């Protein structure tokens, strides 16, 4: 009977093209709007760290003076660290993998003929552990050696895209190229395939959803030597005279992040104890003079929530879009009632000829399901357009319709339309056929 119902449904849809189109569009608009927001929300809610989420921890220090009762985020921690603290944390030589991070912009000189130098490339200073901690997959070579973290050398890890831009399609490991001022030479230690987790949880200070990942990673040990100004947020709790890069290094300005990998509870407890000692030590040196000096670690999930990667506005928008879907469905109910009322006579005839209420109900529900399916397909098209607009508006590459969202949209559309169709279908199947048989 299902194919018979499908045949009848298709025939009815063709008979009332304008009304059917209105119903399809009502469902499609609701699905399009809600799927756009759900897809965007899902992309933002994604934790790209996977099973490393509970191991990787951002380190925070309440590193401000007595002038401030509290500073930074709502919990009294700034999101970033001073260079002094990062330097001290690095030199503490704990056994846990760890890395500081800060972003810089650089000029890169291509070795391909006719390609002008470009300053479009972002780089980040990191320690060697960064690559294992954040699971960077290498295409050629690998990270610089451990000794480079102590004794700086002009070695870098670059992306495949940057390697091809500089050298063309060759294995560039061991080759040198000019960057930063366009003269300084750097040797390629490794080339990675693709590394642009969304959101960019490893460094949220320069945007949550960058379209391009870093093109080049350079050893953090070069920071003091290269004197490269950071790109991104720099903030301080007190006015300080800064006349050059060296002043920033010595200042109380916060502008770097520091990650450490703590694989179990014992490691976390040990690191917290270490931070406690470190804070005490700094207080003795006259720093951290505020009322509640302390350190903290936050795992990736906590860090993403803490940085409000998904803002309250986004949640409200998802709620609003679902309400909009509800409004569209209420409209669809009205349109379906109008459509089905026209079929009361036919339903009466079918009842007289032996159809049960259940069969009439099923027949009309199949028609609603078909309308919902078409509504879902058009809704997916609208959602694709909506997500394209989101990408253009926010300059990110997230929020695309994947297979699960595609199936989810169709299921949501089917479910929504079937719920919508229950009332009109019940009205038809519960009507008294004898009235319509006589009245026709």
């Amino acid at each position, binding site marked *: 009977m299902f194919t018979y119902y499908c045949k009848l449904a298709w025939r009815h849809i063709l008979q009332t093209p304008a009304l059917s189109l209105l119903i399809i569009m009502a469902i499609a608009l609701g699905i399009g709007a809600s799927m756009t927001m759900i897809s965007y929300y899902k992309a933002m809610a994604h934790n790209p760290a996977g099973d490393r989420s509970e191991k990787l921890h951002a380190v925070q220090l309440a590193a401000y003076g007595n002038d401030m009762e509290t500073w930074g985020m709502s919990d009294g921690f700034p999101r970033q660290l001073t260079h002094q603290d990062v330097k001290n944390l690095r030199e503490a030589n704990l056994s846990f993998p760890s890395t500081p991070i800060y972003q810089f912009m650089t000029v890169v000189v291509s070795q391909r003929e006719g390609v002008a130098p470009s300053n479009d490339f972002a780089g980040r200073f990191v320690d060697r552990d960064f690559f294992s901690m954040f699971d960077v997959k290498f295409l050629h070579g690998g990270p610089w050696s451990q000794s480079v973290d102590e004794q700086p050398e002009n070695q870098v890890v670059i992306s495949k895209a940057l390697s091809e831009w500089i050298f063309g399609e060759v294995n560039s490991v061991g080759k040198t190229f000019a960057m930063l001022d366009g003269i300084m030479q750097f040797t390629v230690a490794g080339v990675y395939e693709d590394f642009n987790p969304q959101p960019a949880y490893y460094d949220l200070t320069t945007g949550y959803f960058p379209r391009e990942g870093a093109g080049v990673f350079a050893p953090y040990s070069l920071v003091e030597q290269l004197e490269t100004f950071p790109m991104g947020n720099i903030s301080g709790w007190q006015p300080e005279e800064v006349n050059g890069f060296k002043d920033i290094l010595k200042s109380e300005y916060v502008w770097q992040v520091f990650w450490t990998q703590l694989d179990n509870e014992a490691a976390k407890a040990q690191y917290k104890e270490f931070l406690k000692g470190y804070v005490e030590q700094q207080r003795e040196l006259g720093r951290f003079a505020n009322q509640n000096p302390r350190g903290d670690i936050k795992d990736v999930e906590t860090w993403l929530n803490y940085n409000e990667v998904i803002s309250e506005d986004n949640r409200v928008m998802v709620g609003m879009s679902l309400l909009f879907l509800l409004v569209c469905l209420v409209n669809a109910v009205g349109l379906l009632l109008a459509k089905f009322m026209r079929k009361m006579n036919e339903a009466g005839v079918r009842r007289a000829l*032996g159809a049960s209420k259940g069969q009439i109900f099923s027949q009309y529900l199949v028609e609603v399901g078909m309308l919902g399916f078409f509504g879902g397909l058009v809704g997916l098209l609208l959602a694709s357009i909506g997500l394209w607009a989101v990408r253009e508006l926010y300059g990110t590459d997230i929020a695309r319709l994947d297979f699960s969202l595609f199936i989810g949209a169709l299921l949501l559309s089917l479910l929504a339309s079937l719920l919508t169709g229950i009332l009109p279908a019940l009205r038809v199947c519960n009507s008294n056929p004898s009235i319509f048989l006589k009245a026709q």
Partner: protein
Amino acid sequence: MLRMNKISKVFSTDLIETHALREFDLGVAEGEFVTVTGPSGSGKTTFLNIAGLLETFNSGEYFLDGEDVASLNDRQRSQLRNQKIGFIFQSFNLIPDLDLFDNVDVPLRYRGFSAAERKKRINYALERVGLAARAKHLPSQLSGGQQQRVAIARALAGEPRFLLADEPTGNLDSLMARQVMELLEEINSEGTTIVMVTHDPSLARRAQRNIQIIDGQVSDQQQLAQAV
């Protein structure tokens, strides 16, 4: 074939109760052709709807082919209606967007016949009413008399033992009405029980028995001819 004992049917609204049938008693034997007459509002159509299991009743007993229908649920009533009863309406009630073949197919679909069986029955039923050549026409392409013949073909396709006709000639001119009546008589002569509501006294007289309903009760019964 049909036995109604003290059937009552009341239509209620907030303000008024209308007694459409009052302790209505009637029996129709297998193979009989019974016409039902009576003034408008007398309960003829209500009787027909209850007989065709399209309406329930408030009290009394109704046995169709020996089966007590009061205890049946909607699915069972629909099944019984589909298997044993054929309907013919005054306004034909063909589904306008289905061609003749698909119209006749409707009751067979609910019967669960195979595609081949349905096709065989549809072709036979349409041949029987002389419209096999127009199987792919829409009802709107036919005259009133032809549409009623399609409706008869639809009623016959499932080979019901009981045919209920509600003023089947009411919308037809006299020639077409006579043709339809002859077709019904032929069907009856082959053993199908027919109960026909009509306003036309001349048609009413052509049946074996005429019953008159007034105020929801059988007021008069006339034996007109011997059952076949």
